[in-house]
């Protein structure tokens, strides 16, 4: 409970005694490159293969001749939009970006760089963390949209290359009974997950105490806590919005 209280106080500290707007614009752009652009490669790999595997495994389970092949496309689409693109990518995002945020801030803490900022009269949490949180909330939904396309495309490639489904059937399947709200739901989830990963990781890194070993522990703890928070939020959002 003490940690949760400290976490919310930390979040509050991001918005007090801020620097000028132009300072944040530059920092957010820099962080967007670090957080967003440099995560594209891993997102491309993970989402394409997840889509492919989903298509192949769905095809494997469709043994009844009464179920049309286009269902493969439909299942890949719904699984991708509702769960795979926002949630699995969030777990990957927590592993890559979350550990990076916690490790970076933890190192800054133990080498007194955060103290140096505080002594200069700069609100270190706002200066260092707010741009990371905003950049994550801006870039992660874009990564999820990319993951969504690639996941469905991966399913298309795997399905057609293994002759499990024809291209026409798959495309018919992904257009069949499409509910636009699922896209809104996916984007809401992605913004919430990005906030959770970036803020929890920043919190863990910002309050690191000790030396190099503790920085490693903070990074691990950031990823673990982010994953738990993602799964909890995933359930709550599904319960609330669907």
């Amino acid at each position: 409970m003490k940690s949760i209280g400290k976490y919310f106080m930390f979040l509050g500290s991001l918005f007090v005694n801020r620097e000028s707007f132009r300072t944040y614009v530059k920092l957010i752009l820099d962080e967007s490159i670090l957080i967003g652009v440099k995560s594209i490669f891993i997102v491309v790999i993970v989402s394409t293969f997840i889509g492919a595997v989903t298509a192949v495994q769905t095809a494997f389970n469709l043994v009844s001749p009464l179920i049309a092949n286009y269902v493969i496309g439909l299942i890949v689409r719904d699984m991708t939009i509702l769960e795979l693109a926002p949630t699995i990518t969030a777990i990957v995002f927590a592993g890559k970006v979350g550990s990076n945020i916690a490790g970076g801030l933890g190192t800054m803490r133990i080498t007194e760089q955060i103290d140096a900022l505080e002594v200069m009269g700069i609100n270190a949490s706002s200066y260092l963390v707010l741009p990371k949180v905003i950049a994550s909330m801006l870039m992660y939904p874009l990564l999820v949209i990319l993951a969504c396309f690639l996941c469905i495309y991966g399913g298309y490639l795997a399905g057609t290359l293994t002759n499990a489904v024809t291209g026409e059937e798959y495309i018919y399947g992904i257009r069949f009974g499409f509910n636009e709200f699922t896209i809104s739901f996916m984007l809401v989830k992605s913004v919430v997950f990005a906030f959770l990963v970036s803020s929890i990781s920043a919190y863990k890194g910002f309050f690191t105490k000790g030396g190099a070993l503790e920085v490693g522990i903070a990074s691990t703890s950031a990823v673990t806590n982010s994953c738990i928070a993602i799964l909890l939020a995933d359930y709550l959002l599904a319960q609330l919005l669907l």
Partner: protein
Amino acid sequence: MIEISDIKKSFDDVEVLKGISGTFYQGKTNLIIGASGTGKSVLLKCMVGLVKPDEGNILYDGRDFTHADRDLKTEIRREIGMLFQGSALFDSKSVEENVMFPLDILTTMPKSEKLERVNFCLQRVGLSDVNNKMPSEISGGMKKRVGIARAIVNNVKYLFCDEPNSGLDPQTSILIDNLIHEITEEFGITTVVVTHDMNSVMEIGDHIMFLHKGVKEWDGDNESMLTTDVKELQDFIYANKFMKRFRNNPTI
């Protein structure tokens, strides 16, 4: 001038500072000395606001820092420069960007003026042609100099140095000590240095405060320190064989 009165600080059940009072004078190099674990660094951190004292007041030219509101605290902090034990340079920024950082954030100076000021400060600490180097590419002594340049770049009124010559060879230590002393006199800064290095004490100690087990046992200048009758201070000064020769033969 910085005045502290009755500063107390405990961590859990351990009382680290037990009511320390004293004055640090403008234009002088004020030293806080004492053995390891006597609370020197904690006192310094209380003074710059990194640690909140449990009791007591810290006055910066009459302005109460301890009980100040956020705006006054920020105003005073922007008049403070600090050299950290490990230099605390931002590793992702070059030397030039490190020194320019306080100007980028705290001022609206045009870029050319900032660059001029950065180059002046780097030259003042005896560094040239290092602007584009990264902190990982320069030596420990150079890092300390860059740290000093960054600390004074914004025309600070107060300079704090936490063990400025730890990890440095004796020659570089003396260079850094002298640099701090010269800058203090040249710019009329109130400088507070935490050290346990007797060379620094004898070289630059205009005003010295001796701490022992969280209590101020003595303060004065470095010459009167050698003739002190405070036993703890005597033990501290004459701990090594070289200094013991002075104790046994004051005419040296």
